[in-house]
């Protein structure tokens, strides 16, 4: 690999950020003008939302299970096993539900978007679309962006719910806790700020998954090898961004709601 000078490296990075910002802005703004591709938005909602349900449900459920199991060990030392419900609910709703759902959907869909759009790019289908008078950002990126943001919000709610249910299963079946007390404690532990924090995060994660996936797809170069590279980069970059943005949103929400 040729060695790039620091100057050209910096220029490339800044140009990439600029391109990413322009793409993201157009993807957002396109929904406010015609033509709007509603059919594509619904297709993407089905593919991204319904298609990701199994992995989100499984991940959420077993995360709730393991959270209950692990926290019970520590809580037992303080004689507070009955607070397992509080811990599972708070952890799932504020942090693990949104982040794990974001990471799972990123692994499945950011890669899918990068590879699909990347294949279209290297086989000149994107150019063909432009030649046929269609804006590829409007047709391909905007539907994926809005579908991901919309569906990730609901996928997170599902992950939270099945996570708490998984915790309940472990708490009742393995820890011998009362189901009613578990759910009561879970419910009591959550306040408005926690829900707001947990449901704000998927909006950012959805945005990151779609824009990063589409950005790498639309900028694919170098044939099938380039498609593979774009796919890997999309998953890596979107996953890292999700965790970084999770921290920033958490800090901001703690500042706003005080917890």
């Amino acid at each position, binding site marked *: 690999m040729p060695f790039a000078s620091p100057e050209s490296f910096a220029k490339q990075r800044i140009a990439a950020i600029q391109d990413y910002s322009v793409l993201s802005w157009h993807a957002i703004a396109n929904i406010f003008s015609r*033509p709007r591709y509603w059919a594509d938005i619904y297709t993407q909602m089905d593919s991204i939302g319904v298609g990701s349900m199994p992995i989100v449900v499984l991940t959420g459920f077993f995360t709730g299970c393991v959270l209950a199991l692990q926290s019970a060990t520590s809580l037992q030392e303080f004689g507070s096993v009955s607070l397992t419900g509080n811990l599972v609910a708070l952890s799932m709703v504020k942090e693990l539900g949104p982040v794990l759902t974001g990471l799972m959907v990123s692994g499945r869909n950011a890669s899918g978007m990068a590879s699909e759009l990347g294949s*279209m790019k290297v086989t*000149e289908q994107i*150019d*063909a*679309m*432009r*030649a046929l*008078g269609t804006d590829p950002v409007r047709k391909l990126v905007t539907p994926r962006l809005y579908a991901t943001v919309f569906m990730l919000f609901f996928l997170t709610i599902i992950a939270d719910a099945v996570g708490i249910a998984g915790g309940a299963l472990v708490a009742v079946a393995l820890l011998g806790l009362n189901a009613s007390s578990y759910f009561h404690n879970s419910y009591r532990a959550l306040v408005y700020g926690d829900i707001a924090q947990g449901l704000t995060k998927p909006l950012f994660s959805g945005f990151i998954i779609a824009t990063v996936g589409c950005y790498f797809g639309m900028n694919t170069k170098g044939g099938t090898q380039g498609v593979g590279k774009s796919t890997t980069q999309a998953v890596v970059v979107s996953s890292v961004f999700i965790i970084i943005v999770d921290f920033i949103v958490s800090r901001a929400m703690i500042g706003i709601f005080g917890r």
Partner: protein
Amino acid sequence: MTAEPANESASLNQADTGSTEPVVVVEDVSIIFDVKPVLQNISFSVQRGETRIILGPAGGGKSVLMKLVNGLLRPDSGTIRVFGEDVTAMRETDLFKLRARIGMVFQESALFDSLSVEDNVAYRLHEDRVPDEEAHKRVVEALQFVELEQTIAKFPPELSGGMRRRVSIARAIIAKPDLILYDSPTGGLDPITSTTIIELVIKQRDVSHTTSLVITHRLQDAFLLARHRFNIQTGKVEPIPNGGIDDSTKFLVLNEGRIVFDGTTHELVHTTDPWLKEYLA
């Protein structure tokens, strides 16, 4: 000259539109990729009804030139006017409107894998909200033109390379464009299939008299285009009698990003340029 019918119709076409201005005017265009100059100081024009064959060895910048004409790429310097509009200075949204008058056949067909042949061919009609019934009728007509109406329900991966190329031609002509850009329509195809594709280009040229740019690096394809015509009575492509050549077909030869020849078939075969003579040999 033996291609009078084609020329007469081309003149009619010109009169119809009431304009004698060239359809494509390329002026002093250069483009560099990274540090490599791909095209240098390219200037030529394409008249209404003309078929301009862009010949040259692979890697000479032919496809880049085609994309520049369609506004898919922007040159580093120079101007390109298509239908009198400067595509190098137009916004992408305006280019989308201009491209409604341009059909393009891509090197590897570039059909949308997720759409059926019908949806691929009707893509532009669907974008323009043409009613389904009319769109279907026009798709059937376009597929009949390329003799592939039986593939209407198939998907691109189910078709052979030659069939994909023909579907791509159907997609390019369905909106009855005023300019068709063929980017290596025979690239990677066997000689028999290549001839079939070139015959379709000839048919389109002689039936619709659409201005077109045809890229090829196969000399036999280029001369097939120049020396044959479509006979509407027999419905077949045949050699122009008495070894004649089609006047509306002209050549542009590119080598290493520069124009080495711009002229008629007659001028090309009688060239004295040593490189060109060797290339044509």
